[in-house]
C-alpha cells in the first residue's frame, strides 16, 4: 500500500479555473520526492488535498490507505496527526513562545508534559534552534521562523511529511541544511514530499520530481535512485 495515491484528481475552485486536472501518482512509503512547477501551477492545492483542507472536484486521494476526500470530518484530525506539514507562510502563533508553538501538536495528541518537553527539545535541536524555547517567534528571522515551523511539523514523528516552500526564506547554504534534515527523516522511513521553486537545489539533490504545469502533472518517475539509503548518501554527498 503506497503512502499517498492520487487517482484522477481534478480540482476547480469555485469561480476559478481548474487548479489541478486529472492528476494521478503514487508515493511509496519512505519515498522522497520534490513537487515543482511555476507559481500558480497547483502545488499548494495538491498538498492541501492530502489534509482535507480542500476537497477534489473529481477523483480520489488516499493517504496511508484511507480515502481522504470522503473521510468523515471526525476522522480528519487523526489524519492530520499522521501528517507533518510545513507551510508556505509558516503559520506560527505570535502570542506564545517557540516552545508552545512546537509543543502544540503534542498537547493536542495528549502527550504527558515531560514527554512533550523531551520531544520539543529534540525537534528544536534537529533544526538547530536549541535554546530558542522561551523566545517569541516574532523576534526571529524569517529562516528561523521557517525552522520553528519545521520543528512543529516533525515533533509528532509523522509518517508523511509535506513541505510547501520550506526554504523560501533561507539562503542557499541553509536551504541545503534543511533539505538534508528532510533526508534524515526519510532515512528513518518517513515519506517526504517537498514543494519548491528552487530548481538549482533540486537539480543538485536528484530524487523523483513531480512537475506541475497549469494543473497537469508530469512525473519524472524515479530517474534518480530515491531509496532511503541512496537518498541519504546523496544528501550527505551534498555537504562536501
Amino acid at each position, binding site marked *: 500500500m503506497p503512502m499517498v495515491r492520487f487517482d484522477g484528481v481534478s480540482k476547480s475552485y469555485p469561480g476559478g479555473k481548474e487548479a489541478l486536472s486529472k492528476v494521478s501518482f503514487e508515493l511509496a*512509503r519512505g519515498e522522497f520526492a520534490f513537487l515543482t512547477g511555476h507559481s500558480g501551477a497547483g502545488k499548494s492545492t495538491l498538498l492541501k488535498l492530502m*489534509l482535507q*483542507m480542500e476537497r477534489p472536484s473529481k477523483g480520489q486521494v488516499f493517504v496511508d490507505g484511507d480515502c481522504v476526500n470522503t473521510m468523515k*470530518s*471526525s476522522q480528519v*484530525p*487523526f*489524519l*492530520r*496527526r499522521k501528517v507533518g*506539514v510545513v507551510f508556505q507562510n509558516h*503559520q*506560527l*502563533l505570535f*502570542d506564545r513562545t517557540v516552545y508552545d508553538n512546537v509543543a*502544540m*501538536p503534542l*498537547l*493536542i*495528541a*495528549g*502527550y*504527558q*508534559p515531560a514527554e512533550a518537553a523531551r*520531544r520539543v527539545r*529534540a*525537534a528544536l*535541536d*534537529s*533544526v*538547530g*534552534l*536549541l*535554546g*530558542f524555547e*522561551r*523566545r517569541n517567534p516574532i523576534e526571529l528571522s524569517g529562516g*528561523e521562523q521557517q*525552522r520553528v515551523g519545521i520543528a*512543529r511539523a*516533525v515533533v*509528532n*514523528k*509523522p*509518517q508523511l*511529511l509535506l513541505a510547501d516552500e520550506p526554504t523560501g526564506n533561507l539562503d542557499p*547554504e*541553509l536551504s541545503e*541544511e*534543511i533539505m*538534508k*534534515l528532510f533526508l*534524515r*527523516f526519510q*532515512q*528513518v*522511513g*518517513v515519506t517526504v514530499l517537498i514543494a519548491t521553486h528552487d530548481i538549482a537545489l533540486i537539480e543538485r539533490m536528484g530524487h523523483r520530481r513531480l512537475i506541475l504545469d497549469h494543473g497537469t502533472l508530469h512525473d519524472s518517475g524515479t530517474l534518480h535512485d530515491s531509496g532511503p539509503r541512496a537518498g541519504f548518501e546523496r544528501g550527505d554527498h551534498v*555537504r562536501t
Partner: protein
Amino acid sequence: MSAPDSPKRQTANAPRKPQAGASTHKISIKDRLNGWAQQHQLVAVETLMRLLTKPLGSIMTWLVIAISLTLPGAMWMTLDNLSQLSNRFQASGSMSVYLKTAVQNDQAQQMLSRIESMDGVADVRFISADEALAEFRASSGLGEALDLLPENPLPGVIVVEPELALPQQDVIALADTLRSESRVDSVELDTAWLDRLHALLALSERIVWVMGALLALGILLVVGNTIRLSIAARVDEIRVTKLVGATNAWVRRPFLYTGLWFGMVGGLVSWILLAIGWALVSGPVEDLAALYGSEYRLLPLSAGAALVLLLGAMLLGWLGAWWSVVRHLHRIEP
C-alpha cells in the same frame, strides 16, 4: 540565553541520530486518559486565569450575569420570607366559636372564662347575639327589615386568639376540643385571608420563574456574544490547531470552560449583591418587627437556593458558550 546553534554547526558533528520514526508514536490508553484529564485541568486553570488576570474585557459580562441573577434571587429571597411569615400567621390564626342559639349570655360568660384558662389560649372575646345583630344591622344596611324577624337569628360568638407561638396542629386540636363542647354549634378557623395570601404567593412565585427564564435567556445571549468575540479574536490559533490535528472537542474546550467561569464569577458576584441587599434591609425589618412585638428576622437566601443560583449560572454560562461555539467554530477551517 545560549547562543543559537546553526544547523551547519550541528551537522558538522558526527551524524546525529534522526528523530522521526513512522511507527514509534504509540500512546497507551491509560496515558491517553491521563493526558485527557490533564488537558481538561490545564484548560480549566488556564481559562480561569485568563479571566481573572485580564478581567477588563469581560467585566461587563460578569456584571450583566450577576444582575440578571440578583433580580430573581432577591425576589426568591423575598418570597421565602413571606411564606415563612405566612406560616406564622397561620399558626396564630384566630378562631370563631359559634354558640348554639339557646345558650344564654351568662352561660356564655362561664364558658368564656373556662376557655381563657385553656392551654395555648392567649385571649378570648365574647360577642353576644345582640351585639352581633347590631353589627350586622349597621354593616348590611337592612335596618328595618331585620326588625320584622320574630327573634334574633344570630348566635353568640366567642373569638379565641391562640398564643402566637402555638404550632399549627395544636391550634387545630384546640378547635376540635371547642367543637366537641355541648353548647358549641360550630368552630371556624379564620383562614380566608391566609388562603388569599397563599394564592398571591403562588402567583408571585410563578412570576419569579417567568422572570428568571427571561433573564436566563439574557445570560445565554450575553455569554454567547462574549464567546463569539473571543472566537473571532482567536481565529488564527483555531486554524493552526485544527491543522495540526485538533479535534472539534479540543478546540471547543477552552471556550466552554470560559462560559462556565463566566457563570461562576457572575453567580459569586450576585451572591455578594444579595448579601449586601440583605444586610441593608434586615436591620430595618427587625426594627419594624420589634415594634409589633415580634422577633421576626429577615432570612438570607437559603444555602440550597444559593447553590441552585450558582450552579444554574454555571450551566447557563456553559450553554451560552456552547450555543456560540456551535454556531461559529465550524466555519473556521484551515
